[in-house]
């Protein structure tokens, strides 16, 4: 009688765990243990080279963007409407602050393979830099000068490349870290027994 109860318990637990695992795999693909080995072996560096190049060249390009944008803003400031004067000053103050934070934590996240920093930098890029730069390029009220168009377009290209390569880097790094975590659990349990 007791063995039958424990058998039912075992079956129920297996059913629940397989259901949860199938659900998790459909909602969050790539998290289950047997899929993690596709990305890395657990003993290699998964910092993304394309992302590192994008961050490095973004860091080099940012002072040029800052100087060019400030000069263009000071030249056209008298000719934009008063609403856009406020808007342009706000945008040109917030973009450098966000940019410095985004590039710094992006560097830290990529070189030390930390997912929170990588994801934070990616979110800053997607939710803040992309709308702000698109606003500067597309809204006619900002009276964009030709040089404005040129430097903002190049900046936008860097932002889009960061979004593309950063997404892949986050997926790979997260899978790598999960694999390391699972492996460390197995090893510690083996030692504990």
């Amino acid at each position, binding site marked *: 009688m007791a063995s039958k109860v424990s058998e039912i318990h075992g079956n129920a637990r297996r059913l629940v765990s397989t259901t949860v695992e199938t659900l998790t795999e459909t909602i969050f693909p790539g998290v289950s243990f047997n899929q993690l080995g596709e990305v890395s072996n657990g003993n290699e560096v998964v910092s993304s080279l394309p992302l590192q*190049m994008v961050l490095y*060249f973004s860091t*080099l*390009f940012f002072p*040029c963007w800052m100087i*060019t944008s400030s000069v263009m803003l000071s030249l056209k400031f008298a000719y934009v409407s008063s609403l856009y004067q406020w808007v342009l000053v706000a945008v040109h103050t917030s973009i450098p602050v966000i940019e410095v934070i985004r590039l710094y934590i992006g560097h830290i996240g990529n070189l030390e393979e930390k997912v929170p920093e990588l994801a934070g930098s990616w979110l800053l890029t997607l939710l803040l830099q992309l709308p702000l730069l698109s606003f500067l390029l597309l809204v006619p009220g900002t009276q964009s000068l*030709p*040089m404005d*168009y*040129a*430097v903002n*377009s*190049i900046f936008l290209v860097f932002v889009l490349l960061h979004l593309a390569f950063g997404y892949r880097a986050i997926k790979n790094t997260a899978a790598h870290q999960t694999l390391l975590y699972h492996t460390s659990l197995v090893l510690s349990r083996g030692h504990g027994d």
Partner: protein
Amino acid sequence: MRITGLIPARFLTLTSHLVLLITILISREENVLACLPADYTQQQYKTRDAEFLGGLVAGIALTALEFIGFLTGVSMFTGLPALLSLTCHSGASVALSYMVVDVWDCHLYWWVFGLASVLPAVVEVLVFVNVLMLKKNV
């Protein structure tokens, strides 16, 4: 010889040349007017404008070619070609800035194009051939 200092310099001069080409592309009207006689016809304006536009687009295409070669790593770590590209593109940046501010003739653009867009692009293609086909990596 330490080469790694050339990479930021080359990237920045390439970018500045590209930025100036795009700027002139958008605001080329005054330069075209500068190379027409005082009593120009609309037809003359259109031909000169089309020539200038073609030259600018060709300059952008060659710069994009160099960018691709540089960013994919094929010519990122070469010594002499990088130095040549550096000098050509910085010279072009200065000349194109003068072209915008002093409203130069659109004829003078062809000198800038020949010396500072075609020359580095030819060297870049030679580096491509060296690295990709003759397998002479740096």
